[in-house]
Structure formats: structure tokens, C-alpha cells
């Protein structure tokens, strides 16, 4: 599903050049659950942004679903992202002005689906995350765990093949964190590929494979015990 060869990402300002990723080579197959770990500033989020087609690499190749997407325009990346990739963020990133239902429905709106279809799919996603009873609430009226479940519902509503999660439990207490991890594991069992950036070894235990990054390099790649691709 994902092949990255010699990926490089350099951020430059007038005076400083910062290399966030340096010669990163990664391959992720469909159905995998991969955790990316490493200290702050090691390039985890940058890697996730490139994987999620939010950003282009400075150098190297990146293939997604068989397409070379290393140097696509914003428009092309957006087209490819739609319906294929779902995002989950540490800070949930729900739109405060929209209700739970409207937040979940949003990706379908951008896919141009009809109102009936949107309603059916968004309700199914909310049902799946056990959030139907909160459909008319606004994000601020929910607990952190509930907000993250809504964010997951939004990520899966369009049947995304890949879910990218950036520290999905970072803002949650352990009970709510476990709840979210279980949901992700379930999704993975149902066939969704998941790539998750995390600081937590406990969360990483849910993954099949853990990639360790340090200063923009991949330092180790471990298969977790009991998992086989």
C-alpha cells in the first residue's frame, strides 16, 4: 500500500535549514497496523503528513496504492486523499461550529454524496463508534474519549483504506485511551490499514510492527511478538 524510498524532508527558513526526514525507507502492506515511535522532533509527524498526502517530500519517492505521489499538486493529492485516507489527531480536530453528526458527515460532503447517502453512512459510522446518542451535540459538550470516537467515526465514514493516527490517546486518560485503542484494533481486524504515531509503548503494543525514528532516520523496525503479516 505504501512504499517510501529515500524520503527526505527539509524545512528551510532564511537562516536555518532543518532536516526533518533523512533517507527514510518504509513499506507498509494493506491490513497492517504499524506504530511509529521516537522522541519529540524526530520526524514522526512529518512522516505521517507525507504518508497522508498533506505534504510533499523534498526528495525521494513515495508510492501510495501503486501511484507515485512524490510530487503531486495539492489538488491531485486532495483527490487521492478523499475517501482513501482517514485522519485521527491527538487534539481530535473536530470543527467546533459543527455538531457530531455534521463533523462525521463532512468528508462525504466533499465526496459529493447525496444527503440520503450521507445520512446513512454517517449514522452507520456513529453507530459503529456507539456515538449515535450524541449526534446532535457539539464537540465541546463531549468528553475527550467521546470526541476522539467521533474523530474516528469521521476517519472511517468514507471507508478509508488507510487510517493515520497522530498520538490518538495523547490527550486522554488511560481508560479512554484504552477504549480508543480497542476501537482502532477492531478496525484493523476488519481490514483497515492503520499507521499510528505514538509515544506510548502500551499503545504500540496494539501494533503488529513498530518503526523507531531518531533525528529523521529509521533506526529499528521490530515485528511485535505474536503478529505476522
Amino acid at each position, binding site marked *: 500500500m505504501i512504499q517510501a524510498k529515500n524520503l527526505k524532508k527539509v524545512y528551510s527558513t532564511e537562516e536555518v535549514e532543518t532536516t526533518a526526514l533523512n533517507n527514510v525507507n518504509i513499506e507498509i502492506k494493506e491490513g497492517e497496523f504499524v506504530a511509529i515511535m521516537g522522541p519529540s522532533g524526530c520526524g514522526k509527524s512529518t512522516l505521517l*503528513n507525507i504518508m*497522508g498526502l*498533506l*505534504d510533499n517530500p523534498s526528495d525521494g519517492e513515495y508510492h501510495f496504492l501503486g501511484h507515485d505521489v512524490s510530487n503531486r499538486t*495539492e*489538488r491531485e493529492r*486532495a*483527490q487521492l*486523499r*478523499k*475517501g482513501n485516507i*482517514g*485522519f485521527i489527531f491527538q487534539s481530535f*480536530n*473536530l*470543527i*467546533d*461550529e*459543527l455538531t457530531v453528526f*455534521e463533523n462525521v458527515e*463532512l*468528508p462525504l*460532503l*466533499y*465526496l459529493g454524496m447525496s444527503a440520503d447517502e450521507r445520512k446513512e453512512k454517517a449514522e452507520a459510522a456513529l453507530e459503529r463508534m456507539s456515538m449515535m446518542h450524541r449526534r446532535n451535540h457539539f464537540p465541546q459538550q463531549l468528553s475527550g474519549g467521546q470526541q476522539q470516537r467521533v474523530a474516528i467515526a*469521521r476517519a472511517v465514514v*468514507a471507508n478509508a483504506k488507510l487510517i493515520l493516527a497522530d498520538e490518538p490517546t495523547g490527550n486522554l486518560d488511560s481508560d479512554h485511551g484504552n477504549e480508543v485503542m480497542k476501537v482502532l484494533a477492531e478496525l484493523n481486524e476488519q481490514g483497515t490499514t492503520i499507521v499510528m504515531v505514538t509515544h506510548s509503548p502500551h499503545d504500540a503494543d496494539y501494533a503488529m510492527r513498530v518503526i523507531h525514528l531518531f533525528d529523521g532516520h529509521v533506526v529499528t523496525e521490530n515485528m511485535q511478538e505474536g503478529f505476522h503479516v
Partner: protein
Amino acid sequence: MFKNYLKIALRNLKKYKIDSFISLSGLAIGLCCCVILIMYVRFEWSYDNFHTNKNSIYRLTGQTVNSGNNEVRHSTIHPYPQSIALEEEFPEIKSLINISGGSAQFLKDGKYILEPIKFVDPEFLSEFTFPLIFGDSKTALSNVDNIVITESAAKKYFGKTNAVGELMTIRLRDEPKDFMVSGIAKDVPANSSIQFNFLLPFENQISSASAKEQKTLSGSWYIGFLETWITLKEDANKEDLEAKFPAFLERHFGNSWVERNQIQYGLQPLSQVYFNENYRSGVTQSSNKAYSLILGSIALVILLIAGINFMSLTLSRYTSRYHEIGIRKTIGAIRHQIKFQIIGEVFITCSFAIILGIVLAELLAPYSGVLFQKELDLSLLSDPVLWISVLGLLVILTLITSLYPAVKISGKNATSLFSDDRSAQKIPVLIKGLIVVQFGLAITLMIGTYVMKGQINFILNKDLGFNPENVVAVEINSELQNALKIGQLYSTEAQRIPGVLSTSVTAGEYRDYSKYGIVDIGMAQMMSATTLSQLGDGIPSEAVDAQYLETMDIELVTGANFSKQANTFPSDEIIVNQAFVEAMAWDNPIGQILEDKPEDQGWVGPFDGKKVIGVIENYHFKSLYDPLQPMVLQHIETVERNPGTILIRLSSDRMPETISNLKSLWNSIAAQEAFNLAFMDDMVQRQYNEEIRWNRIIRISSMASILLACFGLFGLSALVAQRRIKEIGIRKVFGASIKNILVLISKDFVLLVICGFAISPPVAWYLSNQWLTGFSYKIDLDALPFLYGGLTVLLIALTTVSWQSVKAAFQNPVENLRNE
């Protein structure tokens, strides 16, 4: 999708209540002010448009040049025989209408009421569009004993609209006469420069004069008292007719007269009557076109300021929505969808504000008369121009406001939207530019207002050469046969009343018809033709008694006043002013005898052979629009003229009591005559009513624009304070004082206002100078109005910004940081 945008737009309005309120209501209020002001400007520009024949109606104008000082004089007043000659000699004239204004006393419930009237030729009703509700326009004024009145006059006098056939008792002169109502005209529209309630056939103007006067009025080519209006035949041309006037003038006035005075006649189209202030007329109203242009510009400035507020607040709010847009991009929104969202949202809020503004304007329009001091009918909603302009405004405002954020934000990629979210703390350059423009405009208006105010104060407080304070003018109907007797008796008796300092009888008609929009101080209004080229085309004079100088507080510079003893004054004595002495270049004026006899004509100037016995200080017998002129005082008993006014100087103590005694005295002497009293200082001030009125309108509009600008500043500073809340928290944790925080937030805005101040003086200076050129007596432009204007606006702006800064500075830093 649109529904989603609408939802977001409405929820955002709700979420950011204060700045939504400020940007929406600011735009709505700005639009409301702008719509009302523009409607008024359109009203001013619509004067006389309703006449069907407006393109073929002209007023005959005359222009003369004073060979002494090359001063150009404009006049609309013409002699009666000239009208007859014009009609006979020029077949291209379809009809010629003589019009003159005057007043008459109308009997109602046993008392006479003074009303302004117009004397007009019968064609007046068929050529001008003043439709009759009852009666026939063609014949209504053909009988000399008929009168046409308006609907409201009919209701006032007869309690009904159809008063055709009713009789009205009117006193034009001494004796009352009955006139039959032959037509009821629809009330004259407010935008008509000719206003009337009563129309009398023109012959009455002449026949109501004394036998001697009748002969002069109907026969003299040198006494003008009427306006000549002309309609041209379809195939006739204005320029062709005008080209024939020089020959006409020479035929009738003689070559030397025309040459000496450089007389020119012209035809003024009806459409130019209202805005041509050169021709001040007793028949038509006029206004200064510059004022409506100024007001129109202020309206646009207000709209611009409100638009800039809306733009800067909307733009600033978008910088705080990077995060939301980042999320939308992450989950699949493409660039044009984001663009469309932003444009759509702005369109929705903008429409909302515009609808609110129009509703507000519609609600306030009926009260706009309070501001404009003119009753006008503003029908907003039925005006297609308004709707087209509003649609245009909606599109322009939406595009200007939304295109910049739409293009800028939609072009960013999602990751940079997330990372820029916290850094969007500074005011964008575009918004800074807008604030500078906004305050530049507001300060320019403020300076202009100060200049206007300064000039008006200067005029009102200028030493006029006479003292109008505590002087009252009691009206005498000079048409009364025993007017002189009444006047002199009243004058003598009034001096016995405690509180009366002195009294004087004058032929001048000092009238305060301000309720009809006419103020006529009537000082030195007699104009006599002269052959003395140093004195221009005529000598203004006034017939007074010996107490005139004392009562009006006019200083005698040299020589003597008229004798105060009855019947002891030789009829050839005159008193002149200093300007007269200068014009004649006399070293020793006392004892000079005027020679005013042309060699080639039998005609003799009225001042020929008169001897100068005294010289008075110059005084402004005309308004300060006109420069000082040579003038002459004659004794009233030597010129066989009836008095028009008794002037009384009162002590400032117990004035109401003195006035009530004056009224009782009047009723005991002339019980059948109404007692009309006017204050001289009020009349002087009312000469500048139009300036005072416009100054008020412009001052209020300028204040509105400054408040609107500050309204925007308030919203923007709130937004900036809110966005810098974390920075403020950190600064406070590390020791910043309240003062430091105040300076931190305010300094950027204050700098912008100062930049605005820097660009305004040249514009304000140019505009103020343009306006001041209209006055003969004016203030010198110094730095003060500029300083006041800048400081006033700076102070208001500073107060506005500090409100938010103080709020931010006093917040608990721990809370600030936690909120982040």
C-alpha cells in the same frame, strides 16, 4: 454544501458575538447612514425635475460689471415694459411668464394673517407642472380677481379641499379686496425651487401699488421688480435667442448705458436654477451645489469606513480560522471548495448586514427631516436605483472582503494551516493599510468640520459695523396710507416704555419669514440707477430718521447726523458711508454735492444735487457673502416713502416685559394690524441658515464616520488582544506591568491613526480652501483646526483601544495560559 456554509456562517456569527455584532451592525449602520445621506443628495439633485416642460423653460438673467472695481453683479430682476417688448420682438418665445414674490394679509376668523404670495401670469399653471386638483389650469388665473391656492391652504382657510368658488378677503394694500378661489393646486413638491401656497394674477402686483408707483412700475425700464420666465417654441433654440439680446438691449437702453455697465442677458435653464447661487432670487430657492457634493462624498466615506471595518474584522477572523480550514483540507476539501466556502460565508454575512442596513434606513428615513431641517419624502423601497446600488455593493464588498482570504488561505496546505494557526497574531499589512485610509478620511472630515465651524463663528461674531443685539424690528405695512403717522406715533410713544433705549423709523422692510425659508433683512435695499461709473450700476440707499444711527449703533465718522427737530431738514441732505467716500475719491467729503446727470439723456439720477452732510463707518447692510459697497442714507420725510419697520433698541434687562408692553402699545395705536416683531440678531444669523444647516449635517455625518471607524478599531483591538492572550500571559509572568501591556496593545493602533493623520492635512487643506472661496469675509486657515481634528480623532481612537488593552492587561496570567 451551501447549507453547510450557511450553518457555519451563522454559527460563527453566534460564536464571535462581539465582533460579529461590530462588523454586522457597523456595516448596517454605515449603510443606513449612507443610504439616507445619498437619498438626500438625490433629493437635492432632483429639484425641478418634475416639470414636464423642464427642458424648454428658462429664466432671463442679467449680468453687469461695475466699471469702478470690475465687480460682476448677477440679477434675475427685470422691469415690466421689457417683458412686453420681449414678447413682441421675439417670435421664438412661446410664452413669457412674469413672476414676483410678495406678501399679503389674509382675513381669517376676523384677524389678518400675513402670508407670502406669488404674482404670476396666467400661463404659469400651464407651462410649469403644478397640477390643479380642482379648476382649469388654462383659465384659473385669467381673471384679475381670481386666486389659486394649494390643497393645504384650502384646508387651512376653508377646512376642505374643494374651495373653488369661495371668496378670500385679502389686503394687498390699505383696502381689503375679495378674490374668488378659481383653482386648487396640488401641494408644491418639496423639491420645487418655486414654492407657493397662493397665486394671484400678475396685474395685482402693479395695481396694488399707489397711483404714482403704478406708473413707475408699469412704465419704467430702469425699475426692476419681477422675474421673467420664458418657454421656447419647439423649433427655437436658446443660443440663437441669446445672440439677439445685445441688439435688444442697445435698442431699449441705449448704447452708452449698455457699454458702461457691460450688461449681458442670458437664459438660465430651469434645471440650473436651484444650484446657481450667483443668482439669489426672491422667487426661487437655491442651494450650494458644493454642499450636496460634500455630503455625497461623506456618504461614500461612511460606507467605505463601514466596508473597511467589515473587511478588516472578517479578514482578522479568518486568520483565526486556519485550524478549521486545515481540518477541512485534511478530510478532503479541495482548494476551490475552501474558496467557495469563504466567499459564500462572506456573501451571507454581507447580505445579512445589508438587509439590516436597508431596514434601518427605511425605519429612520421618516425622521431624517430632523437632521436635514427639510421635509422630504424619501421612498426608499420603491427606488430601483437603491436596489441596483445595493446589489452592486453586495457583490463588490463580498469580492473585496473574501477574495484575499479565499485565495490566501485556500492556497496554503493543511500542515502549514495547522502550524500557522498560533502565529497569526500580528495585524496583516492589508488591514493596516485599510485602517490608515479609514482614519485619514475620518480626520479629514473632522478638520473640515472644524474649519466650517470656525468660519461660521467668524461670520456670526464679525463686527458688522452695527450692533444687531437687543434690537427688535416691528413691522409696519408700508402700503397703509397713514403708515408714516402710525410709525412716528408708535416710535415716539415707545420711547416712554421702560427698557426701550431708542427707536427709529425706516423705510426698509426688515422681515423674518424664516418659516417660509426666506430671510430678508431689507437694509439699504433701495437700489437707484446712477451714471457715476465709480459707483457701479446702482447706489443702495435707505430712508431713515435721525435716530437710526443711535438705534443701530452705527458710528458717525465725520460731519453731522440728520436734524432731530421735525421739519427742519433740507430735502437735499444725505449721509454716505466710508466706501462711498473712497469710491468718489473725496478728500473732504462734507459739503460735496453729487452730480448724477448723463449728457445724452433726459433722465436724472435720484441723488443728483444731493449734499453730503455726514460720513458713517462702513456697515454690512448685506450678508458677508457680499463685499462692502458704497451706500447712502436719506431722511425718510424727504423722500416721500412710507416706513416699513420701526427699529427699537432694548435694554437687556426685563426684555419679555418690555416686549409685552410694546405689543400693548401697538394694539392701542393700530388695533386692526397684526403685531409682528423680529429680533435683529436672529435675522442676521438666519442669513447664514443654509451654512449653519449644512455645518450641522456635515458635523453629525463626520461624527458618525469617526464613531464607525472607532467601532471597527474596537472590534479589531479586541480580536488582537484575544489572539495575543498567551503572549500577554507570558509577559506578565515574566514581570510586565499593566502599563507595559497597555503600550504593547495600543501602540500599533495609535501608530496607524497617526499615519492616517499624516495623510489627511493636504486633502483637508485643499477642500477647506475651496469652500472658503465662496465668502468675501473669511478666516485664515491656520494649524489649529488640523491639530484639533487630529487630536480629537486620536483621543477617541486611544480610548477605544485602551478599553480592550485594559481588559487584557488585567486578566490573570495563569488563566490566559490555561485558556491557550
